[in-house]
Protein backbone atom coordinates (compact mmCIF):
# COMPACT_ATOMS: atom_id res chain seq x y z
CA UNK A 1 0.00 0.00 0.00
CA UNK A 2 1.19 3.48 -0.78
CA UNK A 3 2.41 5.47 2.23
CA UNK A 4 1.47 9.16 2.33
CA UNK A 5 3.36 9.93 5.50
CA UNK A 6 6.54 8.21 6.63
CA UNK A 7 8.15 9.36 9.85
CA UNK A 8 11.34 7.89 11.19
CA UNK A 9 13.00 8.71 14.49
CA UNK A 10 11.72 12.25 14.53
CA UNK A 11 13.15 14.45 17.28
CA UNK A 12 12.37 18.07 18.12
CA UNK A 13 14.15 19.87 20.92
CA UNK A 14 13.43 23.34 22.23
CA UNK A 15 16.65 24.12 24.04
CA UNK A 16 16.88 21.42 26.66
CA UNK A 17 13.23 20.37 26.41
CA UNK A 18 12.57 17.45 24.11
CA UNK A 19 9.06 17.94 22.77
CA UNK A 20 9.24 15.01 20.36
CA UNK A 21 11.54 12.17 21.33
CA UNK A 22 12.19 9.89 18.40
CA UNK A 23 8.84 8.87 16.98
CA UNK A 24 8.29 6.65 13.94
CA UNK A 25 5.08 5.78 12.10
CA UNK A 26 3.55 5.40 8.65
CA UNK A 27 0.20 6.61 7.34
CA UNK A 28 -1.26 4.85 4.31
CA UNK A 29 -3.10 6.60 1.50
CA UNK A 30 -6.74 7.18 2.34
CA UNK A 31 -6.29 6.38 6.00
CA UNK A 32 -7.48 8.45 8.95
CA UNK A 33 -4.64 8.35 11.41
CA UNK A 34 -4.88 9.88 14.85
CA UNK A 35 -2.47 11.07 17.48
CA UNK A 36 -4.12 10.66 20.86
CA UNK A 37 -2.49 12.08 23.92
CA UNK A 38 -2.69 14.66 26.68
CA UNK A 39 -1.85 18.31 26.10
CA UNK A 40 1.85 18.90 25.80
CA UNK A 41 2.55 15.37 24.57
CA UNK A 42 4.12 16.68 21.35
CA UNK A 43 1.13 16.38 19.02
CA UNK A 44 1.09 19.94 17.73
CA UNK A 45 4.86 20.02 17.39
CA UNK A 46 4.66 16.90 15.22
CA UNK A 47 1.94 18.42 13.02
CA UNK A 48 3.95 21.61 12.62
CA UNK A 49 6.98 19.62 11.52
CA UNK A 50 4.94 17.58 9.03
CA UNK A 51 3.35 20.80 7.71
CA UNK A 52 6.85 22.31 7.18
CA UNK A 53 6.39 25.09 9.72
CA UNK A 54 9.05 23.79 12.07
CA UNK A 55 12.34 22.10 11.31
CA UNK A 56 12.99 18.83 13.14
CA UNK A 57 16.11 18.59 15.26
CA UNK A 58 16.84 15.18 13.78
CA UNK A 59 15.07 12.29 12.09
CA UNK A 60 13.18 12.07 8.86
CA UNK A 61 9.68 12.96 7.72
CA UNK A 62 8.38 12.21 4.23
CA UNK A 63 5.00 13.71 3.38
CA UNK A 64 3.30 13.00 0.03
CA UNK A 65 6.60 11.56 -1.16
CA UNK A 66 8.73 14.61 -0.34
CA UNK A 67 11.10 15.26 2.53
CA UNK A 68 9.72 18.10 4.67
CA UNK A 69 13.16 19.62 5.18
CA UNK A 70 14.54 19.27 1.65
CA UNK A 71 11.44 20.05 -0.42
CA UNK A 72 9.01 21.97 1.79
CA UNK A 73 7.40 23.70 -1.20
CA UNK A 74 6.34 20.41 -2.77
CA UNK A 75 5.01 19.20 0.56
CA UNK A 76 3.00 22.42 1.00
CA UNK A 77 1.39 22.01 -2.40
CA UNK A 78 0.03 18.61 -1.39
CA UNK A 79 -1.29 19.26 2.08
CA UNK A 80 -4.11 21.16 3.73
CA UNK A 81 -3.81 22.21 7.35
CA UNK A 82 -6.38 23.15 9.98
CA UNK A 83 -4.48 24.57 12.91
CA UNK A 84 -5.47 24.23 16.53
CA UNK A 85 -5.79 28.00 16.91
CA UNK A 86 -7.89 29.93 14.41
CA UNK A 87 -6.01 31.18 11.35
CA UNK A 88 -8.70 33.04 9.41
CA UNK A 89 -8.71 36.69 8.48
CA UNK A 90 -11.47 38.03 10.72
CA UNK A 91 -11.97 41.21 8.74
CA UNK A 92 -12.70 39.47 5.46
CA UNK A 93 -15.76 37.50 4.42
CA UNK A 94 -15.79 33.71 4.27
CA UNK A 95 -15.68 33.92 0.49
CA UNK A 96 -12.71 36.29 0.48
CA UNK A 97 -10.78 34.06 2.86
CA UNK A 98 -11.20 31.16 0.45
CA UNK A 99 -10.46 33.33 -2.58
CA UNK A 100 -7.12 34.47 -1.14
CA UNK A 101 -6.25 30.92 -0.15
CA UNK A 102 -7.02 29.66 -3.65
CA UNK A 103 -4.87 32.30 -5.30
CA UNK A 104 -2.00 31.55 -2.92
CA UNK A 105 -2.22 27.93 -4.08
CA UNK A 106 -2.25 28.88 -7.74
CA UNK A 107 -5.96 28.47 -8.48
CA UNK A 108 -7.84 31.17 -10.34
CA UNK A 109 -10.72 32.08 -12.64
CA UNK A 110 -13.73 29.87 -13.13
CA UNK A 111 -12.02 26.84 -11.61
CA UNK A 112 -11.44 28.71 -8.35
CA UNK A 113 -15.04 29.94 -8.26
CA UNK A 114 -16.33 26.42 -8.74
CA UNK A 115 -14.06 25.02 -6.05
CA UNK A 116 -15.09 27.71 -3.57
CA UNK A 117 -18.75 26.96 -4.20
CA UNK A 118 -18.17 23.24 -3.85
CA UNK A 119 -16.28 23.38 -0.55
CA UNK A 120 -18.56 26.03 0.96
CA UNK A 121 -21.59 23.92 0.12
CA UNK A 122 -19.81 20.88 1.51
CA UNK A 123 -19.54 22.52 4.94
CA UNK A 124 -22.96 24.22 4.64
CA UNK A 125 -21.58 27.75 4.69
CA UNK A 126 -22.57 28.80 1.17
CA UNK A 127 -25.39 31.02 2.38
CA UNK A 128 -23.05 32.80 4.80
CA UNK A 129 -20.30 33.42 2.27
CA UNK A 130 -20.66 37.20 2.20
CA UNK A 131 -20.59 37.59 5.95
CA UNK A 132 -17.44 38.89 7.61
CA UNK A 133 -15.77 36.06 9.53
CA UNK A 134 -15.82 38.09 12.74
CA UNK A 135 -19.57 37.39 12.90
CA UNK A 136 -19.15 33.60 12.54
CA UNK A 137 -19.66 31.23 15.48
CA UNK A 138 -16.89 28.91 16.66
CA UNK A 139 -18.30 25.96 14.77
CA UNK A 140 -18.72 27.98 11.58
CA UNK A 141 -15.13 29.13 11.74
CA UNK A 142 -13.89 25.60 12.16
CA UNK A 143 -15.98 24.49 9.20
CA UNK A 144 -14.67 27.36 7.12
CA UNK A 145 -11.13 26.34 8.00
CA UNK A 146 -11.84 22.77 6.94
CA UNK A 147 -13.33 24.07 3.69
CA UNK A 148 -10.30 26.26 3.15
CA UNK A 149 -7.88 23.42 3.81
CA UNK A 150 -9.76 21.31 1.23
CA UNK A 151 -9.99 24.04 -1.42
CA UNK A 152 -6.87 23.08 -3.33
CA UNK A 153 -7.80 19.37 -3.12
CA UNK A 154 -4.80 18.30 -1.04
CA UNK A 155 -3.77 14.67 -0.88
CA UNK A 156 -3.27 14.90 2.84
CA UNK A 157 -5.23 16.88 5.39
CA UNK A 158 -3.80 17.75 8.80
CA UNK A 159 -6.27 18.53 11.57
CA UNK A 160 -4.85 19.72 14.87
CA UNK A 161 -7.49 19.16 17.58
CA UNK A 162 -10.35 19.72 15.10
CA UNK A 163 -13.09 19.91 17.73
CA UNK A 164 -11.25 21.61 20.59
CA UNK A 165 -13.48 24.09 22.38
CA UNK A 166 -16.63 23.22 20.44
CA UNK A 167 -19.89 22.20 22.06
CA UNK A 168 -20.86 18.51 21.81
CA UNK A 169 -23.45 19.06 19.09
CA UNK A 170 -21.06 20.97 16.85
CA UNK A 171 -18.41 18.37 17.53
CA UNK A 172 -20.64 15.63 16.14
CA UNK A 173 -21.21 17.79 13.06
CA UNK A 174 -17.49 18.26 12.45
CA UNK A 175 -17.02 14.50 12.78
CA UNK A 176 -19.58 13.98 10.05
CA UNK A 177 -17.68 16.32 7.75
CA UNK A 178 -14.38 14.62 8.45
CA UNK A 179 -15.84 11.20 7.77
CA UNK A 180 -17.39 12.29 4.51
CA UNK A 181 -14.10 13.84 3.42
CA UNK A 182 -12.55 10.43 3.52
CA UNK A 183 -15.53 8.82 1.81
CA UNK A 184 -16.02 11.38 -0.96
CA UNK A 185 -12.49 12.47 -1.74
CA UNK A 186 -10.34 9.66 -0.38
CA UNK A 187 -8.24 12.21 1.45
CA UNK A 188 -5.58 10.92 3.80
CA UNK A 189 -6.19 12.52 7.17
CA UNK A 190 -3.78 12.99 10.05
CA UNK A 191 -5.41 14.35 13.17
CA UNK A 192 -4.47 15.00 16.74
CA UNK A 193 -6.87 14.92 19.64
CA UNK A 194 -7.08 14.42 23.33
CA UNK A 195 -10.68 13.19 23.14
CA UNK A 196 -10.91 9.39 23.34
CA UNK A 197 -14.24 9.20 21.59
CA UNK A 198 -12.96 11.30 18.72
CA UNK A 199 -10.01 8.98 18.18
CA UNK A 200 -12.20 5.88 18.48
CA UNK A 201 -14.92 7.15 16.20
CA UNK A 202 -12.87 8.68 13.42
CA UNK A 203 -9.53 7.00 13.20
CA UNK A 204 -8.61 3.85 11.33
CA UNK A 205 -5.48 3.69 13.42
CA UNK A 206 -4.47 5.52 16.56
CA UNK A 207 -1.06 6.27 18.03
CA UNK A 208 -1.10 7.03 21.72
CA UNK A 209 1.53 9.64 22.43
CA UNK A 210 2.84 10.74 25.80
CA UNK A 211 5.86 12.87 26.70
CA UNK A 212 6.95 13.02 23.07
CA UNK A 213 6.90 9.26 22.53
CA UNK A 214 4.50 6.89 20.85
CA UNK A 215 3.62 4.38 23.53
CA UNK A 216 1.12 2.33 21.53
CA UNK A 217 -0.09 2.16 17.95
CA UNK A 218 -2.88 0.23 16.26
CA UNK A 219 -6.58 0.19 15.51
CA UNK A 220 -8.60 1.14 18.56
CA UNK A 221 -9.72 -2.52 18.72
CA UNK A 222 -6.14 -3.67 18.83
CA UNK A 223 -5.25 -1.11 21.46
CA UNK A 224 -8.13 -2.09 23.64
CA UNK A 225 -7.43 -5.77 23.34
CA UNK A 226 -4.01 -5.00 24.82
CA UNK A 227 -5.59 -4.78 28.20
CA UNK A 228 -7.46 -8.01 27.81
CA UNK A 229 -11.02 -8.81 28.26
CA UNK A 230 -14.47 -7.42 27.71
CA UNK A 231 -17.09 -8.21 30.31
CA UNK A 232 -20.47 -9.52 29.21
CA UNK A 233 -23.41 -9.29 31.57
CA UNK A 234 -26.35 -11.59 30.95
CA UNK A 235 -29.52 -11.31 33.01
CA UNK A 236 -31.52 -14.52 33.13
CA UNK A 237 -35.07 -15.28 34.22
CA UNK A 238 -33.70 -17.70 36.79
CA UNK A 239 -30.24 -18.80 37.72
CA UNK A 240 -29.18 -22.24 38.83
CA UNK A 241 -25.76 -22.78 40.41
CA UNK A 242 -24.10 -24.59 37.55
CA UNK A 243 -25.04 -22.28 34.71
CA UNK A 244 -21.45 -21.25 34.28
CA UNK A 245 -20.23 -24.79 33.84
CA UNK A 246 -22.48 -25.21 30.82
CA UNK A 247 -20.93 -22.49 28.75
CA UNK A 248 -17.84 -23.38 26.81
CA UNK A 249 -16.62 -20.78 24.41
CA UNK A 250 -13.24 -19.83 23.13
CA UNK A 251 -11.46 -17.11 25.04
CA UNK A 252 -13.60 -17.35 28.15
CA UNK A 253 -11.53 -16.15 31.07
CA UNK A 254 -14.05 -16.45 33.82
CA UNK A 255 -17.71 -16.64 34.64
CA UNK A 256 -19.45 -15.84 37.85
CA UNK A 257 -22.91 -15.23 39.13
CA UNK A 258 -23.43 -11.76 40.45
CA UNK A 259 -26.45 -10.20 42.11
CA UNK A 260 -29.93 -10.24 40.59
CA UNK A 261 -29.93 -13.31 38.37
CA UNK A 262 -27.05 -11.95 36.38
CA UNK A 263 -23.93 -13.69 35.25
CA UNK A 264 -20.73 -11.88 34.31
CA UNK A 265 -18.45 -13.44 31.74
CA UNK A 266 -14.96 -12.29 30.99
CA UNK A 267 -14.31 -12.86 27.32
CA UNK A 268 -11.66 -11.87 24.83
CA UNK A 269 -14.02 -10.18 22.45
CA UNK A 270 -17.61 -9.51 23.43
CA UNK A 271 -18.88 -9.07 19.89
CA UNK A 272 -17.89 -12.64 19.02
CA UNK A 273 -18.67 -14.16 22.37
CA UNK A 274 -22.25 -12.90 22.78
CA UNK A 275 -23.81 -14.96 19.96
CA UNK A 276 -22.04 -18.08 21.26
CA UNK A 277 -23.17 -17.44 24.82
CA UNK A 278 -26.73 -16.90 23.69
CA UNK A 279 -26.81 -20.06 21.65
CA UNK A 280 -25.54 -22.09 24.63
CA UNK A 281 -28.18 -20.62 26.90
CA UNK A 282 -30.79 -21.22 24.26
CA UNK A 283 -29.77 -24.86 23.97
CA UNK A 284 -30.36 -25.29 27.71
CA UNK A 285 -33.59 -23.40 27.41
CA UNK A 286 -32.54 -20.69 29.80
CA UNK A 287 -34.44 -17.52 29.13
CA UNK A 288 -32.37 -14.42 28.61
CA UNK A 289 -33.84 -11.09 29.76
CA UNK A 290 -31.00 -8.68 29.14
CA UNK A 291 -27.53 -8.66 27.63
CA UNK A 292 -24.99 -5.93 28.05
CA UNK A 293 -21.25 -5.65 28.01
CA UNK A 294 -18.56 -3.21 28.91
CA UNK A 295 -15.54 -2.72 26.77
CA UNK A 296 -12.32 -1.17 27.83
CA UNK A 297 -12.01 2.40 26.51
CA UNK A 298 -8.90 4.04 25.11
CA UNK A 299 -8.76 5.84 28.42
CA UNK A 300 -8.37 2.43 30.12
CA UNK A 301 -5.55 1.75 27.68
CA UNK A 302 -3.87 5.04 28.53
CA UNK A 303 -4.18 4.32 32.24
CA UNK A 304 -2.84 0.82 31.68
CA UNK A 305 0.21 2.20 29.84
CA UNK A 306 1.02 5.28 31.88
CA UNK A 307 -0.64 4.72 35.20
CA UNK A 308 -2.58 7.99 35.00
CA UNK A 309 -5.69 9.48 33.46
CA UNK A 310 -5.34 11.46 30.27
CA UNK A 311 -7.45 14.26 31.69
CA UNK A 312 -5.36 14.80 34.79
CA UNK A 313 -2.37 15.98 32.85
CA UNK A 314 -3.62 19.38 31.70
CA UNK A 315 -0.99 21.05 33.86
CA UNK A 316 1.92 19.55 32.00
CA UNK A 317 1.02 21.58 28.93
CA UNK A 318 1.67 24.82 30.75
CA UNK A 319 4.79 23.31 32.16
CA UNK A 320 6.22 22.60 28.72
CA UNK A 321 5.23 26.02 27.41
CA UNK A 322 6.96 27.65 30.33
CA UNK A 323 10.09 25.57 29.91
CA UNK A 324 10.14 26.31 26.19
CA UNK A 325 9.97 30.01 26.81
CA UNK A 326 12.74 29.76 29.33
CA UNK A 327 14.85 27.74 26.95
CA UNK A 328 14.35 30.35 24.24
CA UNK A 329 15.35 33.22 26.47
CA UNK A 330 18.73 31.69 27.15
Amino acid at each position, binding site marked *: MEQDIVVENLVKKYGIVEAVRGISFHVARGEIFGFLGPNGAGKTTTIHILAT*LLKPTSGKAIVAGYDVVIEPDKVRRNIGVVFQDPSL*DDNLTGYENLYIHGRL*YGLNGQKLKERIEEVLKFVDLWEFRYRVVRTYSGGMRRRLEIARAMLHTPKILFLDEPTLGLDPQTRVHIWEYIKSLKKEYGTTIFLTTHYMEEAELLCDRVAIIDHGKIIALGTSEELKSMIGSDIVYVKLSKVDGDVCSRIFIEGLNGCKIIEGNTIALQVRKASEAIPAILSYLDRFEIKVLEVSYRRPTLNDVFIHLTGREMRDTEGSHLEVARMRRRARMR
Partner: protein
Amino acid sequence: MLEHIYIMTYRQIKRFWRAKSRIAGMIINNILWLLFFGLGWAYTLRGPQFQILFKGLDYLAFLLPATFATSIFQASFMGGISVIWDKQFGFLKEVLVAPAPRSLTILGRALGDAVTSIANGLIMLALGFALSSKLNPQGLPIAIAIGFVMAVGFTSMGIAIASTMRSPEGFQLIVGTITMPMTLLSGSMFPLNMVPNWMQILALVSPLTYAVDLCRYHLTGVSLLNTIYPWLTQEIEIVLLLVTSLTLAFIAMKMFEKTTIE
Protein backbone atom coordinates in the same frame (compact mmCIF):
# COMPACT_ATOMS: atom_id res chain seq x y z
CA MET B 1 4.81 34.95 -9.51
CA LEU B 2 2.85 38.18 -9.99
CA GLU B 3 -0.12 36.15 -8.84
CA HIS B 4 1.26 35.80 -5.33
CA ILE B 5 2.25 39.44 -5.08
CA TYR B 6 -1.14 40.55 -6.37
CA ILE B 7 -3.23 38.48 -3.99
CA MET B 8 -1.54 39.81 -0.87
CA THR B 9 -1.81 43.36 -2.18
CA TYR B 10 -5.50 42.67 -2.73
CA ARG B 11 -5.88 41.44 0.81
CA GLN B 12 -4.18 44.45 2.41
CA ILE B 13 -6.29 46.91 0.41
CA LYS B 14 -9.48 44.97 1.10
CA ARG B 15 -8.78 45.03 4.82
CA PHE B 16 -8.02 48.72 4.72
CA TRP B 17 -11.22 49.43 2.85
CA ARG B 18 -13.27 47.35 5.26
CA ALA B 19 -12.04 49.30 8.31
CA LYS B 20 -14.19 52.35 7.62
CA SER B 21 -13.79 53.73 11.12
CA ARG B 22 -10.04 53.74 10.71
CA ILE B 23 -10.33 55.73 7.49
CA ALA B 24 -12.66 58.22 9.17
CA GLY B 25 -10.24 58.55 12.08
CA MET B 26 -7.42 59.19 9.65
CA ILE B 27 -9.30 61.99 7.89
CA ILE B 28 -10.30 63.67 11.13
CA ASN B 29 -6.75 63.43 12.44
CA ASN B 30 -5.39 65.03 9.29
CA ILE B 31 -7.89 67.87 9.37
CA LEU B 32 -7.17 68.65 13.00
CA TRP B 33 -3.42 68.60 12.49
CA LEU B 34 -3.49 70.80 9.42
CA LEU B 35 -5.91 73.26 10.97
CA PHE B 36 -4.27 73.75 14.33
CA PHE B 37 -0.62 73.13 13.54
CA GLY B 38 -0.57 74.31 9.91
CA LEU B 39 -2.76 77.37 10.18
CA GLY B 40 -1.34 78.26 13.57
CA TRP B 41 2.19 78.55 12.25
CA ALA B 42 1.08 79.98 8.91
CA TYR B 43 -0.42 82.99 10.71
CA THR B 44 2.56 83.29 13.04
CA LEU B 45 5.18 83.23 10.29
CA ARG B 46 3.60 85.79 7.97
CA GLY B 47 5.71 88.54 6.47
CA PRO B 48 8.48 89.07 3.92
CA GLN B 49 11.35 88.02 6.21
CA PHE B 50 9.88 84.52 6.42
CA GLN B 51 9.41 84.34 2.65
CA ILE B 52 13.18 84.59 2.42
CA LEU B 53 13.55 81.79 4.92
CA PHE B 54 11.21 79.57 2.92
CA LYS B 55 12.77 80.54 -0.40
CA GLY B 56 9.79 82.48 -1.61
CA LEU B 57 7.10 80.18 -0.23
CA ASP B 58 4.65 81.02 2.51
CA TYR B 59 4.54 78.61 5.43
CA LEU B 60 1.50 76.65 4.21
CA ALA B 61 3.02 76.09 0.79
CA PHE B 62 6.21 75.03 2.56
CA LEU B 63 4.44 72.68 4.93
CA LEU B 64 1.71 71.03 2.84
CA PRO B 65 3.80 69.05 0.31
CA ALA B 66 6.05 67.88 3.13
CA THR B 67 3.03 66.74 5.10
CA PHE B 68 2.02 64.63 2.12
CA ALA B 69 5.35 62.81 2.43
CA THR B 70 5.43 62.51 6.21
CA SER B 71 1.87 61.22 6.46
CA ILE B 72 2.70 58.51 3.90
CA PHE B 73 5.81 57.72 5.93
CA GLN B 74 3.95 57.36 9.20
CA ALA B 75 1.13 55.29 7.74
CA SER B 76 3.45 52.97 5.83
CA PHE B 77 5.82 52.37 8.71
CA MET B 78 2.89 51.62 10.97
CA GLY B 79 1.63 49.11 8.37
CA GLY B 80 4.13 46.59 9.69
CA ILE B 81 1.92 46.15 12.73
CA SER B 82 -0.48 44.07 10.64
CA VAL B 83 2.20 41.37 10.53
CA ILE B 84 2.01 41.22 14.32
CA TRP B 85 -1.78 41.15 14.29
CA ASP B 86 -1.57 38.29 11.83
CA LYS B 87 0.78 36.48 14.18
CA GLN B 88 -1.62 36.97 17.05
CA PHE B 89 -4.78 36.12 15.16
CA GLY B 90 -3.18 33.21 13.36
CA PHE B 91 -3.53 34.29 9.72
CA LEU B 92 0.26 34.30 9.40
CA LYS B 93 0.29 30.50 9.67
CA GLU B 94 -2.04 30.30 6.70
CA VAL B 95 0.44 32.31 4.64
CA LEU B 96 3.48 30.44 5.92
CA VAL B 97 2.06 27.02 5.10
CA ALA B 98 1.06 28.03 1.56
CA PRO B 99 3.30 26.99 -1.33
CA ALA B 100 3.56 30.62 -2.51
CA PRO B 101 7.11 31.89 -1.95
CA ARG B 102 7.25 33.90 1.26
CA SER B 103 9.37 36.62 -0.26
CA LEU B 104 6.64 37.28 -2.82
CA THR B 105 3.76 37.24 -0.37
CA ILE B 106 5.58 39.75 1.79
CA LEU B 107 6.38 41.91 -1.21
CA GLY B 108 2.69 41.89 -2.12
CA ARG B 109 1.89 42.86 1.39
CA ALA B 110 4.36 45.76 1.29
CA LEU B 111 2.85 46.98 -2.00
CA GLY B 112 -0.68 46.78 -0.59
CA ASP B 113 0.25 48.74 2.50
CA ALA B 114 2.11 51.24 0.31
CA VAL B 115 -1.07 51.84 -1.70
CA THR B 116 -3.15 52.41 1.42
CA SER B 117 -0.51 54.79 2.80
CA ILE B 118 -0.69 56.76 -0.43
CA ALA B 119 -4.44 57.01 0.11
CA ASN B 120 -3.65 58.54 3.48
CA GLY B 121 -1.24 61.02 1.93
CA LEU B 122 -3.73 61.96 -0.77
CA ILE B 123 -6.42 62.76 1.77
CA MET B 124 -3.91 65.04 3.43
CA LEU B 125 -2.98 66.63 0.14
CA ALA B 126 -6.60 67.15 -0.88
CA LEU B 127 -6.97 69.25 2.26
CA GLY B 128 -3.75 70.98 1.28
CA PHE B 129 -5.11 72.01 -2.09
CA ALA B 130 -8.17 73.38 -0.32
CA LEU B 131 -6.05 75.45 2.06
CA SER B 132 -3.45 76.84 -0.34
CA SER B 133 -3.58 77.99 -3.94
CA LYS B 134 0.19 77.82 -4.36
CA LEU B 135 0.47 74.10 -4.95
CA ASN B 136 1.02 72.93 -8.50
CA PRO B 137 -1.35 70.08 -9.42
CA GLN B 138 0.83 69.14 -12.39
CA GLY B 139 3.47 67.88 -9.99
CA LEU B 140 1.00 65.49 -8.41
CA PRO B 141 1.68 62.33 -10.48
CA ILE B 142 5.41 62.45 -9.83
CA ALA B 143 4.84 63.29 -6.16
CA ILE B 144 2.64 60.21 -5.91
CA ALA B 145 5.34 58.11 -7.57
CA ILE B 146 7.91 59.39 -5.09
CA GLY B 147 5.50 58.72 -2.25
CA PHE B 148 5.04 55.18 -3.51
CA VAL B 149 8.76 54.42 -3.70
CA MET B 150 9.18 55.75 -0.19
CA ALA B 151 6.14 53.88 1.10
CA VAL B 152 7.43 50.55 -0.21
CA GLY B 153 10.69 51.19 1.62
CA PHE B 154 9.13 52.12 4.92
CA THR B 155 6.45 49.40 4.91
CA SER B 156 9.28 46.96 4.33
CA MET B 157 11.15 48.43 7.25
CA GLY B 158 8.03 48.08 9.40
CA ILE B 159 7.54 44.48 8.23
CA ALA B 160 11.18 43.61 8.89
CA ILE B 161 10.93 44.93 12.44
CA ALA B 162 7.54 43.33 13.01
CA SER B 163 8.81 39.93 11.82
CA THR B 164 11.08 39.77 14.83
CA MET B 165 8.50 40.95 17.33
CA ARG B 166 5.73 39.34 19.27
CA SER B 167 3.61 42.10 20.74
CA PRO B 168 1.96 45.12 19.10
CA GLU B 169 2.93 47.22 22.12
CA GLY B 170 6.62 46.60 21.57
CA PHE B 171 6.26 47.45 17.91
CA GLN B 172 4.41 50.66 18.69
CA LEU B 173 7.20 51.64 21.03
CA ILE B 174 9.80 51.20 18.30
CA VAL B 175 7.67 52.97 15.72
CA GLY B 176 7.21 55.89 18.09
CA THR B 177 10.91 56.24 18.79
CA ILE B 178 11.79 56.08 15.10
CA THR B 179 9.02 58.07 13.40
CA MET B 180 9.04 61.08 15.68
CA PRO B 181 12.70 62.10 15.24
CA MET B 182 12.64 61.20 11.55
CA THR B 183 9.58 63.37 10.93
CA LEU B 184 11.10 66.29 12.80
CA LEU B 185 14.50 65.91 11.11
CA SER B 186 13.05 65.61 7.63
CA GLY B 187 12.75 69.35 7.16
CA SER B 188 9.00 69.04 6.86
CA MET B 189 8.05 71.57 9.55
CA PHE B 190 11.07 73.86 9.57
CA PRO B 191 13.82 74.44 7.02
CA LEU B 192 17.13 72.69 7.70
CA ASN B 193 19.24 75.71 6.68
CA MET B 194 19.48 77.12 10.18
CA VAL B 195 19.87 73.96 12.27
CA PRO B 196 23.28 72.94 13.67
CA ASN B 197 25.59 70.94 11.52
CA TRP B 198 25.26 67.64 13.37
CA MET B 199 21.51 67.81 12.94
CA GLN B 200 21.87 68.37 9.22
CA ILE B 201 24.09 65.31 8.99
CA LEU B 202 21.52 63.20 10.81
CA ALA B 203 18.85 64.56 8.48
CA LEU B 204 20.85 63.56 5.42
CA VAL B 205 21.09 59.97 6.68
CA SER B 206 17.31 59.61 6.68
CA PRO B 207 15.67 58.84 3.33
CA LEU B 208 12.54 60.65 4.47
CA THR B 209 14.44 63.94 4.14
CA TYR B 210 14.88 63.32 0.41
CA ALA B 211 11.27 62.29 -0.04
CA VAL B 212 10.09 65.47 1.68
CA ASP B 213 12.37 67.65 -0.41
CA LEU B 214 11.40 65.92 -3.66
CA CYS B 215 7.67 66.22 -2.99
CA ARG B 216 8.11 69.86 -2.11
CA TYR B 217 10.09 70.48 -5.25
CA HIS B 218 7.52 68.87 -7.53
CA LEU B 219 4.52 70.49 -5.90
CA THR B 220 5.95 74.02 -5.42
CA GLY B 221 9.12 74.23 -7.51
CA VAL B 222 11.38 74.92 -4.53
CA SER B 223 14.05 72.54 -3.22
CA LEU B 224 15.51 73.67 0.07
CA LEU B 225 18.10 70.92 0.30
CA ASN B 226 19.51 71.95 -3.03
CA THR B 227 20.07 75.49 -1.77
CA ILE B 228 22.12 74.16 1.16
CA TYR B 229 23.97 71.48 -0.78
CA PRO B 230 24.28 72.37 -4.46
CA TRP B 231 25.62 68.88 -5.27
CA LEU B 232 22.35 67.35 -4.05
CA THR B 233 20.32 67.48 -7.26
CA GLN B 234 16.86 66.01 -7.82
CA GLU B 235 18.39 63.08 -9.68
CA ILE B 236 20.74 62.19 -6.86
CA GLU B 237 17.90 62.44 -4.36
CA ILE B 238 15.74 60.12 -6.43
CA VAL B 239 18.55 57.59 -6.78
CA LEU B 240 19.23 57.67 -3.03
CA LEU B 241 15.55 57.16 -2.28
CA LEU B 242 15.21 54.30 -4.76
CA VAL B 243 18.30 52.52 -3.47
CA THR B 244 17.17 52.79 0.16
CA SER B 245 13.67 51.54 -0.62
CA LEU B 246 14.90 48.59 -2.65
CA THR B 247 17.39 47.67 0.05
CA LEU B 248 14.72 47.83 2.73
CA ALA B 249 12.35 45.72 0.61
CA PHE B 250 15.09 43.15 0.11
CA ILE B 251 15.84 43.01 3.84
CA ALA B 252 12.14 42.56 4.62
CA MET B 253 11.87 39.69 2.12
CA LYS B 254 14.91 37.95 3.62
CA MET B 255 13.77 38.43 7.20
CA PHE B 256 10.26 37.25 6.53
CA GLU B 257 11.56 34.06 4.91
CA LYS B 258 13.09 33.14 8.23
CA THR B 259 9.92 33.79 10.23
CA THR B 260 8.72 30.68 12.01
CA ILE B 261 5.85 30.01 14.29
CA GLU B 262 6.58 28.67 17.73
